[in-house]
């Protein structure tokens, strides 16, 4: 390990500083390792046999097996529930992006009392916990016959994520200079054509950031599908994992593969879209 501190090594006492810097790097790596250790442990344990784990939980595996995964796969009806989760997440993402960006355009360009009021109303939603609306939403969904339907859950997710989308898009559109749009207006281009030909293409980077954020929220959520989807055929991965597996009675060799299967699609996305995911997760920090 070498020290990477800036030009300090030439200063008097640089050797000592170099040493402490190197020591810090080692500590830093160890600290980070501590954070991923539970992951590594989970992966290794899920590949061992139950008897092997019981003999020595921390030992090295005698032999590796994929049986645990196939068992967990059927126990949480992984195929079906993954499709359900994908469908719900995908639809919600599309609707949030489309109607969120449409609404953000006038909110970003009009500076009047009513538009700031509408904007504030949307932002208000960012601090409302789902719990506050879950009971009245249940009654509403029951009255609209939307309980146990994909549509109901998608509408709820859309409403829950619109505030973030509106915030994202409005602040982004405000940074786009209005010249292009004025030129387009002079050429007889209406707001709709202007939006789709000029604004929308510029929104691509902010959309990918927003989408990773929204995707994570929806994919990982338990409460909404738990409350609004009772039909076993429509349940999501998280709900199935939660309802079929009791972590306190189940062997780690069942528990861990189930946990990994639930995470798997997101980890795949993470590997491919690493930069967007990091930006999307720091989404909340955009305000500063």
């Amino acid at each position, binding site marked *: 390990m*070498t020290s*990477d*501190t*800036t*030009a300090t090594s030439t200063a008097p006492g640089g050797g000592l500083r170099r040493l402490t*810097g190197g020591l*810090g790097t080692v500590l*830093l*790596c160890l600290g*980070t390792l501590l*954070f*991923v250790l*539970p992951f590594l*442990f*989970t992966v290794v344990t899920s590949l061992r046999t139950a008897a092997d784990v019981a003999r020595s939980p*921390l030992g090295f595996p005698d032999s590796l097996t994929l049986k645990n995964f196939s068992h967990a796969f059927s126990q949480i009806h992984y195929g079906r529930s993954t499709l359900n989760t994908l469908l719900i997440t995908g639809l919600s993402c599309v609707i949030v992006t489309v*109607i969120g960006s*449409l*609404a953000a355009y006038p909110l970003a360009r*009009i500076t009047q009392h009513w538009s700031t009021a509408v904007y504030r*109303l*949307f932002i208000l*939603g960012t*601090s409302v*916990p789902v719990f*506050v*609306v*879950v*009971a*009245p939403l*249940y009654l*509403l969904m029951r009255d609209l016959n939307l309980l146990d339907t994909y549509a109901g859950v998608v*509408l709820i997710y859309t*409403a*829950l994520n*619109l505030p973030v989308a509106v915030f994202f898009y409005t602040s982004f559109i405000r940074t786009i200079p*209005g010249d292009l749009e*004025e030129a387009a207006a002079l050429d007889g281009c209406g*707001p*709709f054509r202007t939006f789709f030909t000029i604004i929308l293409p510029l929104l691509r980077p902010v959309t990918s950031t927003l989408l990773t954020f929204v995707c994570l929220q929806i*994919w*990982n*959520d*338990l*409460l909404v599908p738990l409350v609004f989807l009772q039909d076993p055929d429509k349940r999501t991965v*998280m709900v199935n*994992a*939660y309802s079929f*597996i009791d*972590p306190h009675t189940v062997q780690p060799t069942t*528990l*861990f593969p189930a*946990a990994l299967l639930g995470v798997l699609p*997101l980890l795949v996305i*993470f590997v491919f879209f690493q930069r967007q*995911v990091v930006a999307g*997760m*720091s989404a909340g*920090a955009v305000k*500063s």
Partner: protein
Amino acid sequence: MFHRRRATMAAFLLPAIVVYGAFMLYPLARGVYLSMTDSLGGPMANFVGTEQYRSMADDPAVTSALWHTVLYAVVVVVVQNGLGLLFASMLFRRPKVRKTLSVVLLTPALISPVMAAFIWSYLFAPTGGINAVLDLVGLHSLNHVWLGDTSTALYSVAAVNIWMFTGYSCAIFLASYMSMPTELLEAAELDGARGWRRFASIEWPLLAPALTVNVTLSLIGSLKVFEFPLVLTNGGPAGATETLTLLVYRNVFGGGKFAYGVALSVVLLVTVVVLSSATSSLLRLRERRI
């Protein structure tokens, strides 16, 4: 672009306003109304005013859930941001490992709380990972039933939350570090400000906006924690990890006390809004003073 074009404006705004209004604002308003009735979730309900709220005062479950929620939030906010800051300040000085380690640290935040709770429920189990590690290094005396002891359960649940989101706090602090003006840092270097002095007099003030964001986000997040206590302990042992959200969930969907549960959710909303806006405006005031 939108001069005198009310119809176009409406077309842009309408879809979002309809969905948001119907499935967010309307339920919010109806929730506040329901909390002032004796509704059981059916069509019949009588207006009872503040009765639900008044009966909370005599309900020890409410005061203890409120206390657990706030204690949990304080522990998470302090430890998570402390660790995140420590990691960020160390990573900033080590450009070679910076990117890799910060991404690695962020991975726990990717997984769902249910999955994190699965992993940790085994690590915390009496014969599980943590106790086995303690045995391995000869600290058998520290073995503990982490989730089964009323004195450690809440902190153990908080530890899972901290494990998940430390990388997130770190990423926000690190972004703030990276945007610091290099001239300022170089000038400090020339003046011989190093180590703690450099951190306290230069970096810490510049980190103020990131601190505001981090504290506010983690505060809101931990006040509305649900999956961790639900999966890890289900509120137990003896109610030691019963949070406001769990109480809302049980009352609303557990049968019999629907309106009471709704009233509790309004209490949750007020708690979140009051604490988070008070904290963030205090921190913003501090930003301006620095």
